[in-house]
């Protein structure tokens, strides 16, 4: 309804047009480095991402409380439409307290996507807030720290996120109150929370001039960074820069398992890669499995290749198992898939698989269909012709694959076979890679990685994201089966639990019991863990819905949810490898894939944002 209002307003209301114009101008001036087509700036509160006790009005800028407000359980929050883009460098918004309502329990702050909205900002993990009733700051905790003055009706509270040093400070009526939070995570949303009836606040994301002189603050940082760059000591280290840059690129490639690219890069630059090639490949294979939703296989592979790793990280293991359960629901995990595959239904639909070739390129409207399609994640070019050749070649190979896979619940050895045979196929289909014969042994995806260019996208759907994978590519080794599932969905337009297979469902339920047991065991060993409990609860809740993909907890089934788990597993493997490498030959790993580099990379974007502004201004 509110959206309709927004839509109809621009036509008749010149004041609104004017405000909109001013907003655009101001945002452009404040954040010139932000490309809004890529990363839109927050412009209003989200009518979707809010608790039911929150009401929005005035173009989704005014927030009022409409719950009972009996106690803290009636707290309600709303997030902005978009997270704060990193390219802002420094981001600022203000909230005016129109009315403090009954008790003035208002919180203003930041929170990550997915944080519970039935709370005030600051109470939960990845949530940060400054509360009006006591003036305390809440840093992901139920207990606040004395921070600033209280605030009430008529006050204007500002919140400034400094993405350069990852801190946040607040302002009250234009006066800076000093740093409130440090070490903030990325991708936070502006958030407000209310708790008692009558509380009303208005947001200013740039619609009006800010009370606090944020441009002055930005200019200070601009000058600082400019000075930092100007004064940066170079001297004798002039020659080292190349090495530093090469190391940065190389460690990035190694960290994310782009083995062939890393090797080629090392060869071209005559540098060394610290990590063993097979180790990179192993890591990559495990990552692929996770991203493909074949978590069970990933767990087995990890246990086999890195014995003891998961035993040392019980939390990680639990997360993996939880995910495995979710993937079972999804029908992508091998334990259920091998059962599903034999189902007549999918067999029937199988011949239709060639028709899914346009699916990769064009079926963008069909979001999150199964595990294969993930338009939100892409790291580069997707040549459509290639996927076509894959599906056709894959479809021929499919029967043998299923027979070997069905013999054991773990298909990790067989999947290697697939990928090899598949890749040799695909390399043949690509004339340019045929001449580099020694690389055919690499998985096909890695060759692709060589001509990836960061940020170049074919097709319209993909968002550019540094350091994430295109699921589709990973799936190519055995996209036959998955392609199958997809076709099924495309044809029937209804996805079913575990692919609709009875045996698979039983297996899933059994697995769920095992998972529950594991949780209890962990509880006994390490004490209660609310995150685990929540995770398990969410996973099991999927079963309660007839259509899990379109339920309140359906978000879990989204393939993008695999990414964080994947990187956690990768980091754990790297950490363990790093430790063992150090114990063996310490000096060697001095410049391993250290996270510092990625931090630098991340920061450089923000530094650049400000440095760039200066250039423009000049």
């Amino acid at each position: 309804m509110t959206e309709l209002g927004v839509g109809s307003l621009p036509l008749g209301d010149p004041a609104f047009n004017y405000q909109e114009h001013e907003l655009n101008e101001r945002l452009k001036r404040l954040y010139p480095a932000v490309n809004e087509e890529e990363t839109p700036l927050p412009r209003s509160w989200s009518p979707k991402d809010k608790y039911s006790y929150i009401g929005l009005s005035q173009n989704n800028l005014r927030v009022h409380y409409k719950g009972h407000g009996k106690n803290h359980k009636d707290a309600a929050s709303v997030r902005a439409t978009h997270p704060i883009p990193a390219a802002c460098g420094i981001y600022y918004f203000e909230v005016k307290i129109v009315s403090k309502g009954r008790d003035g329990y208002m919180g203003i702050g930041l929170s990550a996507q997915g944080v519970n909205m039935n709370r005030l900002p600051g109470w939960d993990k990845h949530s940060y807030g400054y509360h009006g009733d006591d003036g305390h700051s809440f840093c992901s905790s139920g207990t606040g720290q004395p921070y600033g003055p209280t605030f009430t009706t008529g006050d204007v509270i500002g919140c400034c996120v400094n993405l350069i040093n990852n801190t946040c400070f607040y302002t009250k009526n234009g006066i800076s109150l000093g740093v409130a939070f440090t070490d903030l995570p990325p991708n936070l949303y502006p958030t407000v929370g209310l708790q008692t009836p009558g509380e009303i606040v208005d947001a200013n994301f740039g619609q009006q001039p800010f009370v606090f002189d944020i441009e002055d603050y930005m200019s200070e940082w601009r000058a600082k960074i400019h000075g930092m760059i100007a004064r940066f000591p170079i001297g004798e280290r002039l020659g080292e820069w190349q090495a530093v840059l090469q190391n940065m690129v190389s460690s990035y490639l190694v960290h994310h398992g782009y083995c062939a690219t890393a090797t080629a890069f090392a060869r071209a630059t005559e540098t060394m890669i610290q990590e063993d090639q097979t180790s990179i490949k192993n890591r990559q294979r495990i990552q692929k499995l996770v991203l493909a939703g074949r978590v069970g296989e990933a767990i087995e592979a990890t246990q086999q290749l890195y014995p003891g790793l998961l035993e040392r990280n019980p939390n990680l293991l639990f997360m993996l198992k939880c995910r495995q359960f979710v993937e079972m629901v999804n029908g992508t995990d091998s334990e259920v898939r091998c059962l599903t595959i034999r189902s007549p239904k999918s067999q029937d639909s199988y011949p239709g698989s060639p028709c899914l070739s346009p699916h990769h390129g064009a079926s963008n409207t069909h979001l999150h269909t199964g595990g294969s399609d993930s338009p939100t994640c892409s790291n580069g070019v997707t040549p459509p012709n290639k996927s076509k050749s894959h599906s056709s070649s894959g479809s021929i190979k499919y029967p043998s694959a299923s027979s070997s896979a069905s013999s054991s619940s773990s298909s990790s050895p067989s999947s290697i076979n697939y990928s090899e045979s598949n890749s040799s196929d695909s390399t043949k289909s690509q004339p340019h890679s045929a001449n580099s014969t020694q690389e055919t042994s690499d998985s096909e995806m890695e060759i692709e990685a060589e001509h990836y260019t960061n940020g170049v996208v074919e097709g319209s759907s993909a968002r550019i994201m540094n350091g994430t994978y295109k699921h589709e590519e990973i799936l190519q080794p055995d996209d036959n089966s998955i392609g199958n599932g997809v076709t099924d969905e495309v044809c029937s337009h209804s996805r079913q639990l575990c692919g609709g297979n009875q045996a698979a469902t039983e297996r899933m339920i059994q697995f769920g019991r095992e998972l529950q047991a594991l949780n209890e065991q962990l509880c006994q060993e390490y004490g209660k863990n609310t995150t685990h409990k929540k995770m398990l609860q969410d996973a099991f809740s999927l079963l309660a819905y007839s259509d899990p993909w379109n339920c309140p907890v359906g978000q879990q089934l989204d393939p993008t949810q695999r990414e964080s788990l994947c990187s956690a597993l990768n980091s754990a493997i790297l950490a363990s490898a790093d430790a063992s490498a150090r114990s063996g030959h310490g000096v060697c790993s001095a410049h391993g894939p250290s996270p510092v580099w990625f931090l630098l990379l991340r920061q450089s974007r923000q530094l650049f944002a400000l440095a760039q502004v200066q250039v423009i201004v000049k």
Partner: protein
Amino acid sequence: MACLLEAPLRISVLSEVTATSRHYVDRLFDPDPQKVLQGVIDMKNAVIGNNKQKANLIVLGAVPRLLYLLQQSSSSMELRTECAVVLGSLAMGTENNIKSLVDCHIIPALLQGLLSPDLVFIEACLRCLRTVFISPVTPVQLLYTDPTVIPHLMSLLSNSLRTQEYITQIFSHCCKTPEHQTILFNHGAIQNIAPLLISPSYKVRMQALKCFSVLAYENTQVSMTLVNVLVDGELLTQVFVKMMQRDQPIEMQLTAAKCLTYMCRASAIRTDDSCIVLKVRFFPHVLVPRFIISLVILYQWHSFFCFFPLKCDFLLLVQTLPCLVRMCSKEHLLEERVEGAETLAYLMEPDVELQRIASTTDHLVAMLADYFKYPSSVSAITDIKRLDHDLKHAHELRQAAFKLYASLGSNDEEIRKKITETENMMDRIVSGLSESSIKVRLAAVRCLHSLSRSVQQLRTSFHDHAVWKPLMKLLQNAPDEVLVMASSTLCNLLLEFSPSKEPILESGVMELLCSLTQSDSPALRVNGIWALMNMAFQADQKVKVEIVRCLGTEQLFRLLSDPDTNVLMKTLGLLRNLLSQRAHIDQVMSSHGKQIMQAVTLILEAEHSIEVKEQTLCILVNIADGNTAKDLIMTNDDMLQKIKYYMGHSNVKLQLAATFCVSNLIWNEEDGSQERQDKLREMGFVDILHKLTQSSEPNLSDRAKTALQQYLA
């Protein structure tokens, strides 16, 4: 004499340097002017960056010769210029070099040189003059001895960027007194320097800015003028605001903030408000009519709360404040932090609203705690140079922090609480009170004074940390400025509810306070008598007797004719407090009744403010409350006539006090009330009381009714 003492040293130096440096000096005496020029140029190259060489040449007498050459009109312009350059180079050395140069009368010679038409030569002279004048050892008065100098310097301002830089730098270092400010102002400093604020040269802008900061400091005339100055169509204040922007160099932000601070303060402070710190303290403690007290407080607060006049925008202050708060942050140089804190303290001193804003800005209160952490343990270990630097600034930092805390906490109870809750704050003040540096001691006692205005703090932290002990110590043989602050603090510590009162009394403070009342400084007299007044409030008979004995009746009555109204008021307050409780009233009046009645008569008859008369009438109220003391009034017809007069006075406060007095005199249940009632009726008091019951003032009519009821009973 100094030369004689240094003689042996000189000889030893001479013997060492003759060989190398003598040569340079000798060449100055060459008959060939070309060779002399070459000699001067060689000398210039030899002394650059070489302090030893500079000292040698000065010892060898090069300076008089160089000055001679510089002044000779027969010398070539080139030679004269080179001479000025060498002299400038010599001035760059140690302070001793400067002293020697000044002793050789370099300043008049160089000022004379400025009359030359040659710009290069003028610039060389100015550069040298600049170097000499910015040294602390040069007496600044030398710039003002010749009245033609300043106008000439003003006229040179337009010549080049260099002359602008040097001249403004000289001005900013030589403007130290209000007289200097007036001289510069009268010669058009503002009009001449204002355009330099938008000079393309940063150095010129910076020096011009510094000029304005020293010109405006506590100078109403300059400040009022500055408010209306336009620079390139823009108000000067706006130019300063731009200079405070965060991307400007710190030095510029800080100095611009100083300019604005001084302008706002100077155009606000009028001479009668100058001792604003002393004005707000605890209200006078007296016994009777409570509502009068509240009126007194109201009056005091009103005079306190007349903020900056509208001429100086409040918004401007709010813009200046965060800039100064930023200057206090850890990331800046110690000097900048000191200056920032001091300026900020000065800025918000008179304004509670600014104090409230500052207390919430950027965690200022916590940030200031860092000022006490120098030299840090790290600096002691890492490098000796850093330690030296830290040590040098440690005192400055501490005193600046104390000053700022004092300013922050001077009015708001919440802020005071915040300050005392800062880590180790009370311990720091206590140790600050006994530091060797007088500046720190003074600032610490200011801070303590500010915090002592809080009833809560007096009852808790002040008592817990026994602050009275170092305070009492500080009061012994302290210089006047410390004494004023310390005694002022003592006044608050002697308040009836302060737990420190007892131990202070036992420590024999009485003699000290009595001696303060004999001081030449009115501020000290006020504090002395004020403290005694607080001491006498609800005190035992013993203490009261002791006060009267120690102070001596003679001194007491001398204070009643003190030219300072504050002293008079507090003395009256003391009398009131002494004359409380019936037994005490009778006792005091029986021994000093005659003198007191005399003094009261004198004051009531003399020209005094309403407040003084009111206090005096209140004394009569107390006397009328005594048993035997009543008779002193009743038998004094003159006094009764006065009371009657004040009952019909146009001022309600005086009417009320007089009515109170009558009411006490005719109170029933007391011996002889009937006779007194009769007598007063005869004198026509009843009619007046009847009239007063019709008063529009509810308090007054109520009091009059109560008095009339005594007749009915």
